């Protein structure tokens, strides 16, 4: 860079440099203000709050590690954590695989690709509550079309063993279009010459070509899709809350919902902040871990 040499500045140059600073700050200021106030400050405050018995208005006193002690022995917290992980297990890999499959199916289409793409992507742009209203109706145990078409009588959202798989299925239906789009962008950025070269080398079966070219070259996209999903799925709340309400009997309650219940419904801001902090640490830890792991794999 040009300022690495630190030349001796004339008074004139110093003046313009100061002016530069002032202009830069004036341009940065609006964004930095909202950034610090609504993103950075809450991130620190949530940790501080976790050491207090504060209510939801933020009034309370310091109680050391009491909240964490409670958290460790809180069965509902552990089961909410387990449900979140179970949801991720049901969702992350299938959603990624489905996104990839759809992308592979669509890029080869010569006709009607726009329409097919719209079919898979449209759900993604719906508000979550629209998605859940639709699926509560489709999953209705008496008159729902799902039970009719499958000739079943399952209470998809009320039955303890079906509720979470159903929520995961709805989530995949809702969000797979996004993963598909990323995979399509990734597939289209692979140079055609690679495939021609592979054909010359005698890689004639589709699977061979996929294994030797598509999959390795697509890996940056695949890892991005995985990382984005895991980050989002840790914070799952909306669709679970709207589809099952955490029921039956808290069988599908997830971490963020537990945080919501404790803080906003029971008024325990300090304890809610403890749950938030735990979740925050888990998310950061996974992010660090997965970037390391995913990078090692192919990059």
């Amino acid at each position, binding site marked *: 860079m040009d*300022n690495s040499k630190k030349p001796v500045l004339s008074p004139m140059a110093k003046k313009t440099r100061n002016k*530069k*600073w002032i*202009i*830069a700050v004036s*341009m*940065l200021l*609006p*964004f*930095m203000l*909202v*950034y610090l106030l*609504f*993103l*950075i*400050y*809450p*991130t620190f*405050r*949530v940790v501080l709050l976790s050491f207090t018995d504060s209510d*939801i208005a*933020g009034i309370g006193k310091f109680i050391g590690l009491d909240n964490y002690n409670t958290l460790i022995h809180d069965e509902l917290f552990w089961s909410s954590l387990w449900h979140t992980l179970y949801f991720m297990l049901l969702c992350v890999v299938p959603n990624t695989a489905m996104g990839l499959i759809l992308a592979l*199916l669509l890029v080869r*289409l010569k006709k009607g690709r726009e329409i*097919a793409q*719209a*079919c898979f992507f449209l*759900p993604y*742009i*719906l*508000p*979550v*509550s*629209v998605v859940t*209203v*639709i699926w509560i*109706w489709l999953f209705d145990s008496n*008159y729902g079309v799902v039970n*009719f078409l499958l000739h079943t009588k399952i209470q998809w959202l009320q039955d303890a063993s079906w509720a979470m798989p159903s929520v995961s299925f709805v989530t995949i239906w809702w969000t797979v279009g996004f993963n598909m*789009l*990323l995979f*399509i*962008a*990734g597939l289209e*950025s692979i140079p055609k010459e690679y495939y021609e070269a592979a054909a010359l080398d005698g890689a004639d079966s589709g699977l061979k070509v996929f294994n030797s070219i598509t999959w390795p070259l697509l890996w940056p996209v695949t890892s*991005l899709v995985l990382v984005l999903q895991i*980050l989002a799925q*840790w*914070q799952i*709340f*909306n669709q679970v809350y*709207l589809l099952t309400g955490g029921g039956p009997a808290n069988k599908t309650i997830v971490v963020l919902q537990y*945080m*919501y219940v404790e*803080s906003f419904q029971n008024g325990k*801001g300090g304890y809610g902040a403890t749950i*938030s*902090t735990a979740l*925050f640490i888990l998310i*950061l830890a996974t992010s660090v871990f997965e970037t390391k792991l995913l990078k090692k794999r192919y990059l």
Partner: protein
Amino acid sequence: MKTKHTASRIAIDIITVILAVIWIFPLYWAVNTSLSLDTNTIKVPPMFFPKPLLFDAFDYVIKNTSIIQWYLNSVLTALVIVVVVLFISMMCAYALSQINFPGHKGTFFAILAGFMIPTATNAIPLFMLMNDLNLVNTYTGLILPQLVSPIAVIVYKQFFDQMPAELSDAAKIDGAGEYRILFSIFMPLNWGITWSLAIVQFIWAWNNFFWPFIIINDTPKMTIPVGITQVQSWYGIAYPKQLASAVLAALPTMVLYLIFQKKVNQSVALTSGLK
């Protein structure tokens, strides 16, 4: 050999079509139900076409709920969010990209790091902050936390970095200041990016659920995604009305998507770090 190839090709085409039909079916079903008579929705076997075709449910929802108000709230808040986010992010990105001030690298790094911070875990302190500022249950309280969008800064910076240096050099020789250069050269040359970001931010703001759900208590102040969850309890079980409200809530972004499909696809790829 060749016939085998075409045969498998057709088979794959058919699978694609079947999957597409399965995927779009729930949306068709929502529209179908919303146009049906209440009593026709609980028939076995279900009716796959609305007969008679009725707009009663839509009529009822529009007349008996605050849905028009929720629409206005959503449009208003989403537009404010989009405009402010783009404006402040563009300025910030310009300073980071074009003004070589001390600390610009560190600042950009801090913004990149902000991209990794989960926002849902901040709900409690954000709520307390809004409470202290007396902004709970207000549009301002609804909008403010949604103005932070590190991704917009990152994307703008990427594109500003690629602008040829000659452009701003020439303008500087002509005596133009940084603000002039930003608003009369960089902004017009990057309308495409602004549009992409605007579309994505609009969809996010329109669909955002968690924060509006927490900060707004009064039904008339709700945005449409939160508002329609109130509708369920108003009707008891009357699926046509619920689905009519869902269809109405989905309409703006759906139409936006169908008109700007290509642009939306590009924008989504762009804002997730792929081009």
